[in-house]
Every structure is written in C-alpha cells, then in structure tokens.
C-alpha cells in the first residue's frame, strides 16, 4: 500500500466515522422531542437538586413524588421547592414500573423540563427526554450534562457502529447556551 493509498484509506475511515455520528437516531413509546420542542412545550425549566422521594397509592396507581430544591430558573415562575409526580414506584411489596420514567436520588442535580396541566402537579416533559443529569467529570472537574434518553445508544449491525441522538456529555456552559437559544426561539 502506497503512502497515498494509506492516507486516502485513513481519510475514508475518518469521514465514515463522522458520517456515522451525524446520522440521527430514528425514532416506540416515545416520539422524538428536540431541545427546541422541549423548550417550547415545557411549562418551566430549571436546574434542581433532589431532596428525596416518596411512593404512595393515589387514585388507584402507585406514584412517586420527588421533592426538589430549585437552584436556577430558566423558564417559568417556580417556587423554591417543587414536587414532581411520576408514575411507578415501590409500595409495600409491590413494584410498579414504567420504562423511561426517570427516577432520582437525593442530592442529585438535574436540569428538568417541567410540564403540568392546570391544577395538577408537575411532571417531567417527555420523561427521559426532559431529564438532563449533571455529572462532574472526574478528570477535568467540569460539570457535564447528559439527557436520559441519550443513554440509549443504537447499535447498527450493518455498519457495526453506534449512533445516537440527544444531548450527551455537554459542558454545562454549552448546554445553557443551547438552552437559552432554544428558549429565545420560543419567544420569537
């Protein structure tokens, strides 16, 4: 293989890798919501810290109520403490489960796109799609944001490669920039 052929080969592999990453995931339970859709559809957006959870029977189903402290308000008027109600949870010996409904641990910080019908408690818009968890990169110390629904990677057997949609490992500052842009678009 000549130097020229090798170089061309490497370029082809590099571009193929780029192309694979650029392919958006095709969208069963969920319809795909872009960040702009989340910004537009949400009642409120905020960075919050989980204070605790409690599951109980309400209107014939097990629901989990999660209490959050609001740290930063990005959209909507929110009180300092909010309560979210999500389907599923554990009560007594019963375990009720719905795939894609997020669950939270005390102390965890997340950006949440909230949605509520009038007179009803908040819930997370699009469940895993409206949940953006914050984690500190152990190497850099940077806070990174990952959308719950982005954790579902897709293996394409034809190309033996992975592709995904959603927001993943984005530094908080960049995420906020994208979020503000999406919120500005909503206001226009």
């Amino acid at each position: 293989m000549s130097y020229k052929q090798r170089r061309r080969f490497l370029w082809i592999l590099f571009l193929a890798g780029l192309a694979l990453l650029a392919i958006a995931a095709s969208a069963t339970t969920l319809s795909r919501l872009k960040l702009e859709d989340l910004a537009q559809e949400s009642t409120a957006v905020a960075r919050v810290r989980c204070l605790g959870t409690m599951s109980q029977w309400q209107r014939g189903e097990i629901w989990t109520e999660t209490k959050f402290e609001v740290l930063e308000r990005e959209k909507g008027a929110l009180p300092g403490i909010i309560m979210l109600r999500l389907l599923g949870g554990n009560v007594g010996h019963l375990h009720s489960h719905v795939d894609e409904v997020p669950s939270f641990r005390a102390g965890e910080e997340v950006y949440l796109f909230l949605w509520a019908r009038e007179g009803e408690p908040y819930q997370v818009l699009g469940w895993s799609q409206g949940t953006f968890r914050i984690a500190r990169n152990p190497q850099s110390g940077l806070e990174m944001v990952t959308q719950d629904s982005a954790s579902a990677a897709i293996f394409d057997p034809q190309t033996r490669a992975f592709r995904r949609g959603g927001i993943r490992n984005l530094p908080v500052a960049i995420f906020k920039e994208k979020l503000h842009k999406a919120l500005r678009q909503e206001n226009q």
Partner: protein
Amino acid sequence: MAKRRMLLMLHKIIATLLTGFYGMCGIPGASGYAFDQIVPDVRQPAGVSGGSACPVPSHHLISPGAIAEQWSTVLGTSPVTILTLDQTPAGRLNEVEQVITQSMAVWTGVSGTTLLPGTFAPVTRTPAQNACGSDGVNSICFDQADGAFSPGILAFTRVITADIIGVQVGTGAPATQVGQILDADVYFGPGNSVITFATPAALPSSPKAYDFESLLIHELGHTLGFSHSAVLAAMMYPFAPAPGTFSGTRPSAQQPGAPLGDDDRTGLRALYPDAADTLNIGSLAGRILPANPLSLPASPPGVTGIFGAHVVAVDAASGAVIGATLGGWSCAAPGPAQFDGTYEISHLPVGHNYHIYAEPLDNTVYPSLVTPATASLCRNPTTDAGWPPLQACVIPAVNTSFTTRWRPGT
C-alpha cells in the same frame, strides 16, 4: 516481512485513531434485550420470599390461557385515537381487535419458548373508558386521559410485580412466584390534533398517524416483562417509527413473528425458555477482567470484575445482533449479586458463528441511566431497613476504563 509489519502498524494506528476519535465523542453503550428485575424481600420468611436475594426478572406464569387481556372499546372522538379503514362502528372494533390479536401472535410466534399461541386467552372487550388501573386485570386503553401522559409520550405500559409471593393486586390471583406480573396495562395517548394511530389497513391513507401495530407489539413486549433495547432493529427499541411508516416486516400467517428482531427473540427465549428446545441452546459466557486487578474500584468492597460492560453477540454471517446483555455480575442462591465481571448470552441458535465484543458505558453515565438493568440488582440496609447484611450489596459505579477494539479479521 517488513511490509507485513508496516501493515500491522497501520492497523494499530487506525485502531488507536478510531478509538481516540470515538472516545472523544463519547460513543455510548448499546444494550440489548433487558428485563425489569426485582430482588425478593429476604426479610420475609423463605416460604414467601424464596430466601434468595438474587434478582428475578418480571415474568408471567405460563399455561394455556394464562395471560388474559381486555381492551377498551372507547376509541375517542374528534379525532378517534385509532384510525381504521372500516368506518362502521362494528367494523372499526373488529379491525382494532384483529390488530390486537395479530400483535399477540407476533410474540407467540417465536419458536423455542413456552409462550405459545394458546398462552393468551382470547381477548375480551370492555365498554369502560378507564379500564386501565391497578386492578389485577391486564387491559389496553385508548381514551383514558391518564395524568402520566405528557407531550412526547405516545403510549406506555405500567407493569406491577411483587417481591414476595401471596401478594395480589385488585381482583387478581395472589402471586405464586416472586417477580410474577400481577397487572400490566397498556395506555395509548388519547387522540388529539397532533397524535393519532392507524391500523395497518388505514396507515397508507393516514400519513400523519403512528402505526398502531408497531406500537402495540412493542407495548405487549413490556406486558411480557421486557424493558427497552438499544438495538435498532429490535421491536423493543424505545422510539416510534415516524408517522405514516412502520419498521421491519408485517406479520403474516407463515411468519407471525416477522416484525421482531433477533434480539427480541433471544430475549423471549431467555425469559420463557422451552426445555424441549434443541435449536436455541447455544450460550456465550465468560468474565470481563481488567489486565490490572488494581484498577478495580476499592469501593464498594468485593468487586472482582468489570461491571457495566455491554456484551454483544453478532451473527458472523448476517451481521445481525443476536443478543446483548449488560455484563459484570452473577448471582447464586442465597445471593446477593456478585460483581465479578460475569456475562452470559444464552439461548443462541446453534450452528452459527458469532462475533462477540464488550463495550464500555460512557464515563459520565449514572448507573440509574441503565435502569432497570442494573438499578434493581441490589438491596441493603440503607435502601431497606432491616435488610440482612449477608444478603446485601451495593451496585458499583459502571466501569468504563477499557476500550473496545475489533480484532483484525473479524
């Protein structure tokens, strides 16, 4: 010789470049079929808990007619939730019921499982609009304005299981096995100006509607105990085909299970294994261990292998993902789960060659992001007061300190 060495070096450079490139971009993990799991409550007598703290997948008891489903004939108005070709009241209901029956047959059409066409009792109709609820009756609802819906949610299935036997939900029979599904209800979002669903017969003339059959087959997978799969070709992949389209192949009398992916079939065989099956008895098992054992986390104690790697089996001839699992743990009675790097992909068709690889989750993924595959593996005195320490475990952080490389020639 020199040329060969150069080619080998070139391979290494390419592998390093691609690994580095993909690493930078955070290529995520791809998990295959998965089940919702529950750890039995070993604080209770062994007679009701089984005495083992090993996780048990959600499942149905299998016998003829064991799984009963009713569906609500309230289909909404302006617009109706399910668009049909036949517009007569009776014809509309028949068309919807035909899709329900056919969708069940998709799952019972898989060979090598104990789930047989007779396992589902004949579907029944109910005129109740809000038929779905924790009542011990499996129901499918189309016009129940449940408070859990939000934009972006087309349909969902709520599954209830118990961590001891003897517990019941509503009028259902008490559980005779831990992890037994006691109630599984499918909720379709009530039709509105944005979201409607169409039967296969109506879909061609309803380009803005979602394919009812695809979604129902997926939701029925949940009612059988499946969680989501990240394999694109799997029916349990979580995102719907675009409106007006369907993915895969429609079921037929000859191939009732045609819409399923190989990953779905392998998962079904693992969940409902048929002892008489002689074709799907292949198994790939092993442990994923780091070259340097000191790289394993010191906390929690007892972690002896890499946890949280996705192990994927790909058919060498077709390139299809035949099965995938989240590896890194094993469990033998009386438990708890041991984080020893073990993986096993079972119920694979024999007579095939497979490529297998282990792939890390990304470094900032919380264990909760791979729920329920990992989050339901452990219970301990912190999560459950009075939990016996000898059967307690703590889920370690997902280990990502390794990279995947395709070996040359594969």
